[in-house]
């Protein structure tokens, strides 16, 4: 059973993601995590500000349960299924990250510089996290889906809109990492 505590290789994780999508399809639902962000807006009362948020959030209860499950899964995986799991990154990437100021690269699961306890007291870190989140939320709804809805679900169904969206995801990601990171960090 030791393998469960080790990082899971891609050829285990990929098929398990397909299994998640298959389970949802057989339950009569579609795989799409970013829809929950819209539901959360509606639950916070955004329905009074524009029609986009006027719907009965209870119809999305199943997806909110998936979201709550994801939180639970993170808790279980971190506390009971891992022993200080640290991604084994490419050495060149670690060197690059060190030079950008990410000393935690190769030592932690996520960068301490962004997700450590110091994050709450650094204006720059808070700004980075808010802007990053904002773009994810805005972009996912504008594009009509995120990694699960477009890159997995939509592409599995060979939908052209999803291919355009995934190309967009990569254009955006490459611009951020290659052009903007040197300016930000």
């Amino acid at each position, binding site marked *: 059973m030791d393998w469960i505590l080790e990082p899971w290789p891609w050829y285990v994780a990929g098929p398990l993601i397909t299994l998640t999508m298959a389970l949802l399809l057989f339950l009569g639902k579609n795989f799409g995590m970013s829809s929950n962000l819209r539901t959360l807006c509606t639950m916070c009362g955004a329905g009074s500000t524009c029609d986009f948020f006027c719907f009965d959030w209870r119809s999305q209860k199943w997806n909110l349960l998936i979201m709550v499950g*994801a939180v639970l899964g993170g808790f279980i995986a971190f506390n009971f299924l891992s022993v200080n799991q640290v991604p084994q990154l490419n050495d060149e990437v670690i060197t690059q990250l060190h030079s950008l100021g990410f000393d935690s690269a190769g030592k932690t699961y*996520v960068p301490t510089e962004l997700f450590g306890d110091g994050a709450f007291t650094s204006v720059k870190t808070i700004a980075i996290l*808010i802007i990053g989140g904002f773009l994810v939320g805005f972009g996912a709804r504008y594009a009509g889906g995120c990694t699960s809805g477009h890159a997995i679900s939509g592409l599995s169904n060979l939908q052209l809109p999803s291919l355009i969206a995934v190309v967009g995801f990569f254009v955006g*990601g490459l611009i951020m990492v290659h052009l903007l990171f040197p300016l930000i960090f």
Partner: protein
Amino acid sequence: MRNIVFLVVGTFFGIVMFKSEAASWFRIYEMFQFKSFHMYGIIGSALVLGVLLIQLIKRKRLKDMSGNPIMIPPKDRSFSRYMFGGILFGLGWALAGACPGPMFVLAGAGFYPILIVIGGAIAGTWVYGLIKNKLPH
């Protein structure tokens, strides 16, 4: 009963995201540097099996457990919304290092600054709703 099933599927998904490191900011950075096969392997293998699954569902006209035909709804025809929306999403994905699933996984794992990202994502979704009609779709 149904509720518990969804909760269990979500929990399973969350564990997979964490254990595969798809929820790690570092893995997203590495992917956009093209320095590791890991993330491409995850998405690629999920996709190959996903295509086979959907083809099987279509050819055999499989039904879900309530007896309705399984389908993934077609998306509206457009270029600009998918490209522009996709680029904005990609910028955020690389900066925050988390997409809308892993955000919640990281919250459960106890990396609390991710709550700031989740707050930003909810705000971004809300602002999209407000200015939606002014954007090219």
